[in-house]
């Protein structure tokens, strides 16, 4: 099975690619119009997975890339996004309204001064610099219930942001404040430990089909924040058939009302793994919990695989110095869902590539 056959003109596609660190969603909105949500780069590759995938359909495909969305600035979601923006001159860039807040603007502006480099903030700074230098539009800002895209086809396709709300942004800015450089303090690489309060959750409608893309939004148990905030502000519409599970299936992103109020029974749910720090997501318990809500649960990758074998002397040193060690970047597994853009019931096709699997 090959991933290189393009969707039909009247087909909606939601491709979820997750290599073990990071995730990327590639959406065909119909009529060769595309949207990329977040970005990651496969091990040993130069180009982001989204560019490799879209270019596999022919170089003209990039001309149809209309929208590039950063759900948040953590580097497992934004790696390579500047390159996508650069190679898709017709695309608009969309990010959380949080970027306009003084705290995040200051953090982004300090990125070029920080000699440590290599963080999601730097990537976001690169994107904004690139847009400015090439006289492209400033970003489209995601807020609750904001229409980001609307197709001109006979069957409408719309993409709407459901977050972040003001309280979510306020909460996120408190965390950002802690990361701002202060005179006399050491320069450090930003390691993302802060919660994802200002993530951009997306709602896609194509005919009668609805899709909920959960980004990394967490459940805070506070009114108007996290998933409670999304549900509180979401206009009542028919529920979604397809769900990109938030935050790699972690329990702190789980809110059962999402399943009962926003999703159809037994939706197609896709989770991407995450392996960094002391946490490896989704845990078995996460998959068990998710599987209670749907029989159609898919994961893009089983994990990152074994560490590379180095020469014997080096391996000996590793064993003596390091108690625990694991690979955090695997191959980019790919779950592809395609369905016709039409009114009325649809039968989606689900294709699994490169290690993606159905959770039994």
């Amino acid at each position, binding site marked *: 099975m090959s991933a290189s056959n393009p969707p039909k003109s009247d087909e909606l596609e939601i491709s979820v690619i997750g290599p073990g660190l990071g995730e990327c969603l590639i959406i065909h909105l119909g009529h060769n119009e595309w949207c990329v949500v977040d970005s990651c780069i496969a091990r040993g590759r130069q180009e982001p997975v989204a560019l490799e995938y879209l270019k596999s359909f022919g170089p003209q495909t990039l001309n149809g890339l209309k929208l590039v969305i950063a759900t948040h600035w953590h580097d497992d979601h934004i790696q390579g996004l500047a390159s996508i923006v650069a190679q898709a001159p017709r695309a608009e860039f969309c990010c959380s309204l949080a970027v306009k807040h003084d705290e995040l603007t200051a953090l982004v502006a300090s990125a*070029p001064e920080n*000699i440590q*480099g290599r963080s999601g903030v730097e990537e976001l700074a690169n994107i904004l610099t690139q847009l400015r230098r090439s006289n492209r539009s400033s970003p489209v800002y995601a807020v609750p219930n904001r229409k980001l895209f609307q197709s001109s086809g006979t069957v409408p396709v719309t993409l709407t942001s459901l977050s972040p709300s003001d309280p979510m942004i306020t909460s996120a800015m408190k965390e950002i404040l802690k990361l701002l450089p202060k005179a006399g303090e*050491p320069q450090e690489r930003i390691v993302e430990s802060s919660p994802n309060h200002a993530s951009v959750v997306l709602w896609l409608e194509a005919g009668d089909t609805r899709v909920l893309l959960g980004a990394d939004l967490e459940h805070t148990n506070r009114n108007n924040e996290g998933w409670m905030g999304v549900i509180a502000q979401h206009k009542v519409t028919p529920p979604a058939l397809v769900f990109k599970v938030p935050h790699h299936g972690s329990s702190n992103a789980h809110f059962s009302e999402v399943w009962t109020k926003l999703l159809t029974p037994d939706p197609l749910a896709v989770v991407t793994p995450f392996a960094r720090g002391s946490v490896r997501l989704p845990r078995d318990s996460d998959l068990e919990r998710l599987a209670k809500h749907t029989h159609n649960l898919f994961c893009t990758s089983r994990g990152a695989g074994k560490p590379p074998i180095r020469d014997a002397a080096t391996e000996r040193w590793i064993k003596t110095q390091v108690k625990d060690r694991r690979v955090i970047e695997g191959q980019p597994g790919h779950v592809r869902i395609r369905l016709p853009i039409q009114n009325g019931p649809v039968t989606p096709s689900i294709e699994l590539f490169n290690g993606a699997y159905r959770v039994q």
Partner: protein
Amino acid sequence: MRLNGHRVLDYSCRAMSRVPEINGASIVLTGSFNPAIFQPQWFVRQNILPEAEAEAAKNLVVIAQQGAQVCDFETERFRIQVTTDRFMVMSKAASNPVPIRDVVLGTFFVLEHTPATALGLNRHMHFHLDSVEEWHQLGDRLAPKDGWKGVLKGGRPGMRSLLIQSSLDSSENPEAPQLYVKVEPSTQVKQGAYFETNESYSFAKDTPLKTIMDIVRGRWEEAYNHAAEIAAYILDWARK
């Protein structure tokens, strides 16, 4: 294979199969410097060197005379030499060369208004070759002797030094960064080959120092790896 691209990806793995016996690197800036300030304790105060390393600095030469003109010292990991128009950090043969970048970035993060005119990202490697035949073959392939034997009759012409220049990118701009690769018989490793690379940038007057440091920050590791890739490629090519 093009050597004048920024990457030689095909050989990145093979390069690793060749580990130099002696390995070093240096970063050189030309411009206008005040050597008086570049003393070991200054680097400690700026958090560029650990205190213990600076305290153990050796061979310190500071000429302090109404605007010092030389500061030169060695630590366990680095040799730092500053004159009025040249700043250089070089790694020691017993240390990891990569952190010299941090000394440069740290120094000119603090001295942000220093005028600089040129930058060199340099690596030096001495490789041991498997056989004398391979050693001769390297010289013969890089500098064929046929022509020389016709005129240097009775002698045994051999390659002493070869310097190759290439622009770093494919542009025709004469001011484009240049890459110099020098190959010589090693004077330090028996049956060895010496490779020296110099990735050289020159800058227009008033180029912001930050622009130059962005090159150091963004390019250093690639320049360092590229040097190994070039050496590995040439050594493999000569052996065929």
